[in-house]
């Protein structure tokens, strides 16, 4: 092999310096010969073109070379932290006008209508702040664990990030997601009906690891005698009671989302991740964990995040986000540009485990077909579904219905209302209906 002279022009597995001088000369000669031929051919073609004078037939996007095909592009690291294409500027998290009065105690919705797969880009993750967000110096942040523990402990970020870490994909959904729709249709698009929903790969240490390290009293295992309180470091110092069962199962103290540190809007440098449980329990800017023998009845357990039942009773601690799904495209506020084939796509999730099946109806729930679930199908994570749909121009009502691995079936809004009335605000996991009009416009409707 080493004795054989490779033919000039052959691709070598090593840098060009390995080419011998004689090979280089041979290559140069060959190249000049080729160039000569090409020039001659080009001239001939030009002459032929003038003779025929035929306009080229086709799209200018193909026939006329654009600047990016005929010029030099941007260098590497022109942007040290990459940004989405400027053509993607329409996909933004947005507030729902009139929903809240103060933007520091408000919510911005993720643009689900334009997202793919199951992972939410960090910059489009929905936001919910109770008293504004902060960008906290991580070297000054502390996590304290106290209460029914052998000795209260304090951790720096340095110490937490040395702990045995785990990375898991989970959805986070605000308990008030779809809350504006209890009484009827109130908002136009999936961004506003379902956009208090995101899904990330979180990295952190399991809360159980920290509780073990502190010698926490974990109780009998029934979950009835020990509880955990999580508290934030921001102005609102959000507090929520976490079930000890969950704390010993899959609750995480996380510092990362989707491969990078948490975004400030999502609790940098530390947040609780409570898989399957409503977002309010995922305390941001986490500063303290307390172990106790009763729930705490905090503001967001007594005054908010309570289901108001028809008799006026407030039902607290309904924390699990039940099985739910929604078609994200085509969806409300979108217009189909033509008849023919469409891929109907959407998301399904359950706070109790994996999604087992998603069915889709195009006739308002009379007949259903089972959609394809894209992998991965993970517990307490978003699952992407797709199904074929050929639109013939007639009106259609698109719906999706999820079933989780525990056998729970996503209900219709009228089934929810029969039990909970219309004034509940929270925990609306109803089947969503989108009406497709002959004009191609899709709108938000309630059909049952």
């Amino acid at each position, binding site marked *: 092999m080493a004795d054989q002279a490779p033919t000039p022009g052959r691709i070598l597995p090593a840098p060009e310096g390995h080419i011998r001088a004689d090979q280089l000369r041979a290559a140069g000669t060959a190249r000049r010969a080729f160039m000569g031929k090409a020039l001659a051919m080009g001239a001939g073609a030009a002459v032929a073109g003038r003779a025929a004078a035929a306009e080229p037939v086709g799209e200018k996007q193909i026939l006329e070379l654009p600047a990016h095909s005929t010029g030099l592009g941007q260098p590497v690291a022109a942007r040290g932290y990459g940004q989405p294409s400027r*053509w993607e*500027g*329409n996909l933004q998290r*947005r507030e729902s006008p009139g929903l809240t009065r103060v*933007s*520091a105690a408000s919510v911005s919705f993720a643009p689900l*209508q334009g997202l793919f797969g199951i992972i939410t880009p960090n910059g489009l993750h929905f936001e919910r702040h109770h008293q*504004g967000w902060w960008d906290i110096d991580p070297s*000054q942040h502390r996590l304290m664990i*106290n*209460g029914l523990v052998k*000795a209260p*402990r*304090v951790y720096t970020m340095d110490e937490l990030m040395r702990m045995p870490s785990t990375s898991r994909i989970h959805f986070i959904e605000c308990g008030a997601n779809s809350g504006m729709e209890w009484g*009827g*249709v109130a908002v136009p*698009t999936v*961004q506003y009906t379902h956009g208090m929903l995101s899904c990330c790969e979180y990295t952190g240490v399991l809360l159980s*690891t920290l509780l073990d*390290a502190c*010698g926490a009293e974990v109780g009998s295992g029934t979950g009835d005698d020990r509880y955990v*309180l999580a*508290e934030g470091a921001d*102005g*609102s110092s959000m507090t929520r009671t976490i079930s000890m069962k969950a704390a010993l199962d899959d609750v995480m103290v996380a510092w990362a989302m989707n491969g990078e540190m948490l975004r400030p809007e999502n609790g940098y440098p530390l947040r609780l991740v409570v898989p399957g449980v409503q977002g309010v329990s995922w305390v941001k800017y986490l500063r303290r964990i307390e172990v106790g023998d*009763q729930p*705490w009845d*905090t503001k967001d357990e007594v*005054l908010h995040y*309570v289901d*108001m039942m028809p008799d*006026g009773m*407030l*039902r*607290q601690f*309904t924390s699990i986000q*039940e099985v739910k799904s929604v078609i994200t*495209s085509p969806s409300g*506020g*979108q*217009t*189909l*540009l033509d*008849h023919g084939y469409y891929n109907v796509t959407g998301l399904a999730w359950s706070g109790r485990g994996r999604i087992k099946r998603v069915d889709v109806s195009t006739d308002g729930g*009379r*007949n*259903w077909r089972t959609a394809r679930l894209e992998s991965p199908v993970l517990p307490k994570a978003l699952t992407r579904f797709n199904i074929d749909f050929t639109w013939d121009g007639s009106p259609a009502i698109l719906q999706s219905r999820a*079933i989780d691995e525990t056998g729970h079936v996503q*209900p*219709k809004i009228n*089934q929810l209302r029969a039990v909970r009335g219309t004034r509940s605000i929270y925990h609306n996991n109803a089947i969503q209906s989108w*009406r497709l*009009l002959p*004009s*191609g*416009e899709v709108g*938000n409707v*309630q*059909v*049952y």
Partner: protein
Amino acid sequence: MARRSTHRPAAAGIRALFLFAVALVMASGAALASPPGQAASAGPWVDLGRVATPDEVRAWDIDVRADFKGLPPGSGSVDDGMDIWDERCASCHGVFGESNEIFTPIVGGTSDADIERGRVAALADGSEPQRTTLMRLSRLSTLWDYTRRAMPWNAPKSLSVDEVYAVVAYILNMGGIIDDDFVLSDRNMAEVQARLPNRDGITFHRAMWDVDGKPDVQGDACMRDCGTTMDVHSAMPPFARDAHGNLALQNRVVGPVRGTDTTRDPPGTLEQAREFALAAASAGMAGAETGTAGTDVAGAPARLAQGHNCFSCHTRDQALVGPAFKAVANKYAGSPGAADRLVRAVKEGSQGVWGTVPMPPNAGVADADAGAIVKWILDGAP
């Protein structure tokens, strides 16, 4: 106004560094002093972290439970509460706690009969348009704890323990739950709890707290000829078509669909809809080329105002808690010295110019920032 907020100049930073050094020293000490028997059950990382000092636990563990565990000793009168309320609380919650301008009202919707019964009738019959805090409140500890940890809105945790008792007393007094001469204290909280109008209005639904439980509502998995019609029971009303802005500019400019142009009436045909949607998408692409797509708050001064939370109380065009910026610009148009006066108002607070609601001082806003924001406001907040 005392602003014990986190942004303080150099001294605080130096103090923090010192504490950090102390913490490091303590951390190494704690490792040696690990309680016996703990390491065996907890893995080799058990020495990470350190034992918290009792003072540190006291500084952070301020939660108060429904059984009043954690409630610090102290007291405050209704009278004192009224003074604090007018100064620190009324600007957001209204003089009588009735305001729904910024937040859900705190006071209203409860009756003596409710206090007697322990359930608020208006929650069941829906006779009140707003569900006030006192209508829903079933645990007095909740109101006390939240007031202490998170209020006032722009200076949380700045009330002393006695001030918290006083403010809570005043709220309860406005709701007719305690008398004008009442002094609320750690010794009588349980007594007042027994008078809360909605004290028996809450239930714990275990099945939806426990992951092994079961939701209260089930759907059905019917596949064919299921019991439904295509009746539309509810839809977006036509007048709300553009209530969330132009949806064409909230969707991608390529793909199987476009956003609907909600600045136009609904199109009659597919061809017309396609034409509208594509035109709107093109208009959106023009925005993308200039880099303004999706932006709402444009320009440096506006971002500055946003950064200093001015938009919490003001908007450009409409009065919110405070006057609209444009109204301020109109009022002071051509008035000499207006800029200086407004910078002072920003930094020191102001009251009486636009009504009774005081503007809180914002001493933490740098002079240069305040100047730039005021100039922008006087220019009509473009």
